[in-house]
């Protein structure tokens, strides 16, 4: 249970700093992740490996070292900029635990061999994907991003158009809603075999899947929101002299913006699984394909690092969408925070 005084506030590790310069207490808290990195690095270098690796083990210590450098640069800035400091103070506890867990994993695998290979590779092995297979990973990343973003763009644009049409015109709603109701709820993976059969290339099939994943919730949310536009607002606009087109574009549409964003969040999450389904079941490129391929060879280190890349993409896209929404919907109070 949260104490009543905490209700409605964003959770914070420490209170928002008010002064310009960091206090000693704040610096100590900022140093927590540094301590975590140093502990991890120290233990990793000091303890002997149980089995001699087949490659030069350096990815883990290199990553820790780079993290340390980046963190220190940020920390110096944070000492002078309260806003950045607030964010970093919020993260410091989480980062400390993250590095300690990482080192625990290192000890469990490379240092003692308690955890079983090949399903649980050492952090060094996992991270080495980035240093030893940079080109393949980069190519897969680009292929996935290209497929995902193109599909999302197609899905959003078609969703916008069909949502607008279905929300505004009864005729469009009559003819399109069966399509929406029947093909909309079918999950992406179920479409893949059909899409591959009907589309000229597997790439086009993947695009179709991702676009569909975005199109359905987008259309559904937008059309129902336009149909439910507050009648008072429509009448208010009419008595002020608004034409039908003006009403649609300047009343129904803006009042549906919150619904559009809800639809886009749903569509974005759907599109991630659609992307995975597309790349694992047909498209011969991209991160999903790379994961399947690495798994086939029992290279779990690569599987995990690729999953990590996926997580970063998804996290970034969702965060971006939240940022755009917070800006566009600044007229709304009480938005869900991310």
């Amino acid at each position, binding site marked *: 249970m949260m104490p009543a005084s905490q209700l409605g506030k964003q959770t914070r590790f420490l209170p928002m700093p008010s002064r310009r310069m960091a206090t000693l207490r704040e610096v100590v808290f900022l140093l927590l992740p540094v301590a975590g990195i140093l502990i991890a690095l120290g233990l990793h270098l000091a303890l002997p490996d149980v089995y001699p690796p087949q490659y030069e083990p350096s990815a883990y210590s290199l990553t820790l070292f780079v993290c340390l450098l980046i963190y220190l640069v940020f920390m110096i800035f944070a000492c002078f900029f309260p806003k950045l400091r607030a964010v970093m103070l919020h993260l410091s506890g989480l980062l400390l635990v993250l590095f300690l867990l990482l080192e625990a994993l290192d000890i469990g695998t490379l240092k003692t061999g308690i955890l079983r290979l090949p399903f649980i590779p050492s952090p060094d092995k996992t991270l080495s994907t980035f240093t030893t297979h940079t080109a393949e990973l980069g190519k897969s990343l680009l292929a996935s991003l290209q497929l995902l973003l193109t599909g999302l763009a197609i899905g959003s644009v078609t969703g916008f158009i069909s949502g607008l049409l279905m929300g505004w015109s009864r005729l469009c709603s009559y003819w399109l809603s069966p399509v929406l109701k029947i093909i909309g709820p079918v999950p992406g993976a179920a479409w893949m075999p059909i899409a591959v059969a009907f589309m000229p290339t597997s790439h086009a099939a993947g695009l179709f899947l991702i676009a569909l994943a975005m199109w359905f919730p987008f259309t559904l949310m937008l059309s129902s929101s336009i149909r439910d536009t507050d009648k008072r607002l429509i009448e208010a606009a009419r008595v002020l002299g608004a034409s039908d087109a003006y009403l649609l574009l300047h009343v129904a549409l803006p*009042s549906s913006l919150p619904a559009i964003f809800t639809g886009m969040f749903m569509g974005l999450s759907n599109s991630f699984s659609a992307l995975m389904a597309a790349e694992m079941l047909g498209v011969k490129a991209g991160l999903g394909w790379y994961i399947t391929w690495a798994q086939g060879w029992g290279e779990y280190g690569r599987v995990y690092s690729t999953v990590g890349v996926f997580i970063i993409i998804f996290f970034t896209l969702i965060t971006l969408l939240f940022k755009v929404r917070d800006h566009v919907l600044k007229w*709304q109070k009480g938005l869900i925070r991310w």
Partner: protein
Amino acid sequence: MVNASKHSLLAQDVTRIFTNQFGSELLVLDKVSLSVKGSEIVGIVGPSGCGKSTFLRLVAGLDKQQGGTLLYDGAPVTGPHYDRGLVFQSAALFDWLTVYENIAFGLKARKVFKGQENKVSEYIEMMGLGGFEKSYPYQISGGMASRAALARTFIQDPGLVLLDEPLSALDAFTRMAIQEEIIRMHRLKGAIYLLVTHDIEEAIYLCDRVIIMSPRPGRIIGEIIIDLPHPRDRVDDAFIVKRRDVFDRLSGVVTEELTMEEVQYPMRV
């Protein structure tokens, strides 16, 4: 001196029947006739549900009567027009627009906004909204929202202003302050005002005459001319006599609603 206005509104035997989904009919307005000319402020009072809002919606062109005629400036009312402004019971501001953009909405919708930026600022000042131009509706008080809704209508220079309990949600002091703005605006521009209200004092303070409606089916059952000079004094004897007039006419026909109303706003005799 009130600005001269050549507008006219003529309602003759206006009848409105609502039919529900089971086909049963509800007679809401029964042969309502009313003629207003020039720059008159006409109050409409009557028990809740008697069809006051329905009548204003018909005049605004948002609804269609089943019988009778409605002529504005001699022509039948066929649909909404910015020359017949309507201010709703709730302010009905556009949430996604700032106060400034809300007030400019009509001008923009009619594509006459260009070059009128000053006019918008002028109305913002006149209605006491200065400093709130960039605020969104959720950031302003109920009083401010009412002011913005009024400004949004007044800026269009309508020849007929329909006010459907625009101040009913406000406290007494805010209400009195905005009543002054309404009078000022009326002197400045001159137009026919139809004011629906539950507040007898408000009706007598603002109007040149007050129409009294019966419970549903709504009919006009009386009319009281308020020929008191402006500015009016709410506790002056002549004012209180008018209050009693209206009150007596209403209490003759009215059910509990009115008594409730008078409990809320007891007469200051």
